[in-house]
């Protein structure tokens, strides 16, 4: 009946059951609608609570555990509110807060990167690699071209890093658009390609390595003219540089892009339902590439800003979270912040505080072994991501609260909810 080689199409798969959406963005949107802001808060509280228990168990003392977390809190600098002052040299809380803000600005950007890709239905795990690319390119530009006008030099380095990272992320976008390669795989691979390339570039004998320091895989220093100025504190003492404001303005840019532009409309449509988007006349492939590129741009900007404002050279292999994990923490930030502009901002602040607080707050004190602190941070982070991924659990608990209330209400005569 049918020509050889032709098989008639089998019956179409069943319609989504009870509105179960197929796309990643749609699933995340449902969770956002259902839980609002409560679920993220519960997630974080739960994660911290479990961590307190972990520390208490290993230190055999609940009191020690609480003390430890108090140190973390002090480390964040949030207690600065009590005695506000602008003098970074004398006030420890002020200094802590300033460092927390620095950490936050990086995480804002890597979080926005992941969030933007999620909005288009893609999982950008490659933030770390894109961050590295931005960092390296900014370093290279910042090191070369000495004697250039400072403003131009800074701009050139930032733009260069951003664009390079955008192109790097674009590779994953192109692969997805042309051959349908899953972006999780491509971005993971790109991460490690960036890592090892950086290892070569900055390794002993590598092209970008600081030859005056021959045994250590450190990059060259960015020239003073190409550094981002500080607005709180001074350069020498690691003040807060204007990168913080750049990050904040990116939050606004993100919001505007997503909600107020045709680009954002297209990105959201493709993320929720690429078939309908195509039918509507939207070029799906172009948007996939565009979204990944913009996503990479955010992450690359983070790298560029860190290079130009923070420590101005980069030691490869630093296990310090600020450099080696920010891309991955960005995933947690975006998820916790539900891929929204404001959510990402708040989540970035939470993680920034957590990171700096445990690293340096706990690390500087003697409540518990400081190197435990590093790992504790990973554990907390892991728990948060785990619970976010499974906020179905938290959601169902939350929803059953409402159901219970309703049942109680109907059983008890004359009860009001």
């Amino acid at each position, binding site marked *: 009946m049918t020509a*050889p*080689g032709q098989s008639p199409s089998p019956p179409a798969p069943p319609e989504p*059951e009870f509105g179960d959406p197929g796309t*990643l963005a749609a*699933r995340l949107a449902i969770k956002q609608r259902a839980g609002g802001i409560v679920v993220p808060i519960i997630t974080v509280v739960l994660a911290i609570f479990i961590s307190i228990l*972990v520390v208490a168990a*290993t230190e055999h003392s609940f009191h020690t555990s609480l003390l430890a977390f108090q140190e973390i809190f002090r480390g964040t600098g949030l207690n600065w509110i009590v005695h506000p002052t602008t003098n970074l040299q004398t006030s420890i809380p002020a200094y802590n807060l300033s460092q927390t803000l620095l950490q936050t600005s990086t995480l804002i950007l890597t979080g926005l990167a992941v969030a933007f890709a999620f909005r288009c239905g893609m*999982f950008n*795990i490659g933030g770390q690699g894109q961050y590295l690319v931005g960092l390296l390119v900014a370093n290279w530009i910042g090191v070369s071209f000495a004697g250039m006008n400072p403003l131009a030099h800074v701009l050139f380095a930032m733009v260069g890093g951003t664009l390079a990272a955008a192109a790097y992320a674009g590779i994953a976008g192109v*692969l997805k658009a042309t*051959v349908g*390669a*899953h972006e*999780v*795989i*491509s971005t*993971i*691979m*790109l991460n*490690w*390609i960036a*890592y*090892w*390339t950086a*290892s*070569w570039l900055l*390794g*002993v*004998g*590598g092209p970008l390595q600081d030859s005056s320091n021959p045994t250590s895989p450190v990059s060259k220093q960015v020239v003073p003219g190409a550094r981002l100025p500080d607005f709180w504190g001074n350069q020498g003492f690691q003040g807060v540089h204007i990168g913080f404001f750049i990050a904040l303005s990116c939050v606004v840019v993100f919001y505007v892009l997503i909600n107020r532009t045709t680009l954002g409309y297209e990105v959201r449509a493709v993320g929720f339902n690429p078939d309908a988007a195509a039918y509507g006349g939207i070029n799906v492939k172009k948007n996939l590439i565009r979204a990944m590129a913009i996503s990479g741009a955010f992450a690359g900007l983070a790298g560029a800003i860190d290079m130009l404002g923070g420590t101005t050279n980069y030691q490869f292999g630093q*296990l310090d979270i600020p450099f080696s994990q920010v891309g*991955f923490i960005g*995933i*947690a930030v975006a*998820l916790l912040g539900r891929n929204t502009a404001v959510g990402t901002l708040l989540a970035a602040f939470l993680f920034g505080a957590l990171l700096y607080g445990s690293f340096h707050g706990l690390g500087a004190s003697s409540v518990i*072994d400081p*190197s*435990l602190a*590093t*790992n*504790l*941070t*990973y*554990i*907390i*982070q*892991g*728990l948060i*991501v*785990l619970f*976010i*991924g*499974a*906020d*179905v*659990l938290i959601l169902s608990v939350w929803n059953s609260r409402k159901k219970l209330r309703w049942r109680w209400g109907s059983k008890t005569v004359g009860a009001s909810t």
Partner: protein
Amino acid sequence: MGKQDRWGLDVSTWAARLENPISARLRDPATTGYLGIVLGAFAAFIAIPPIEARTITWPTLVGLVAIALGIWTVTRGRRRLGWGAVASGLLGIGLGILATRSSAGNLNSAFDATLVAQTLGFATPLVFAAMGGIFSERSGVVNIGLEGMMLMGAFWGVYGADKGGSWVVGLLLAAGVGGVTALVYAFFAIQLRADQIVGGTAINFLAVGITGFFFVLLYNNSPIPNGVSLLPNVHIPGLPGFLGDSIGDLNILTWASFALVILAFLVLFKTTIGLRIRACGEHPRAADTVGINVYAIRYACVTLSGVLAAIGGMYLSEGPLGNGFFQFNMTNGRGFIALAAVIFGNWRPFGAFWAAILFGFADALALKLQVYSDSASTLFHVLPYVLTLVAVAGVIGRTVAPAADGKPYSKQ
């Protein structure tokens, strides 16, 4: 009769292809394409020991044949495969020429029998983790957390060997912890239907944190003692030169990995339980309607993947390279290379095995080529990742994941 090509020959499976007459096989673009890729690699191989041709003629000739085959393949319709063969041919010529330029001494020290041994050694942890990954994904659950499970194995394996006095205890502990970690992941992915990639990423974070935390807690003030019981090597006495240097002294886990691959293949493709596992990964609802317990199978496969990954991870710390020491974040991406091997090998045990060998070769080569240039040899580490990118770009045919891979299943 399955798929046919334009000449009416049965090309539905490789078995069918092999039964076609030779002339027909040569006309089949898939055959010429793969042949082209292989010849390209061979072109480079000619210039290194043991053949070690010192003129550029041979590599160039063989490479040109590869390019020709590639072009033939392109014009017969398999474009990506054909261009892959062309690229392979070009690369082969280039590498062959490079090799002829290098000194014989360096070549000999780089390409000797220990290269084989090191390749197998580097590949061992990958093979274990990849087999685990295959079981998990074939049952329908993506496992990005292989990296974390390997890391758990690396730490707890050492701990067990240390406190338990023997590597056997270490092995059991590693397997156990790996299994438990996977069970946690399975709970979130299967029961709670959480997003599997997010869950896997979380497992990786947690593993780094947990292993680091307990490493500091348990060993900070009294480091891991020297002479912790290691995974033993299997010494085969009396093997002649090349064989002796290459496989005469491999680790027990390396031999175990060979057996594992065969076992995995048999289980997945020759047993009833394997059929059911694959059904769960392709069409869980169909499996459910014939009475298969999809949840149970997925739980079992994910847990198995954790056990295997952890054992593979233990090789890193307790094997010949690790010497009984653990380092923070020791796996450093190997779990992802294993995942790449699974994909590159098209979710088949032997495919993933050869992919792991290839990736292990890259690592071994990176080490050996340090004789040329310390820093440039680092770049060899990117090879597994670049190759996987090439694979997912569909150069080597389409990689087809199990149809329901990554989609949570819900009974009603």
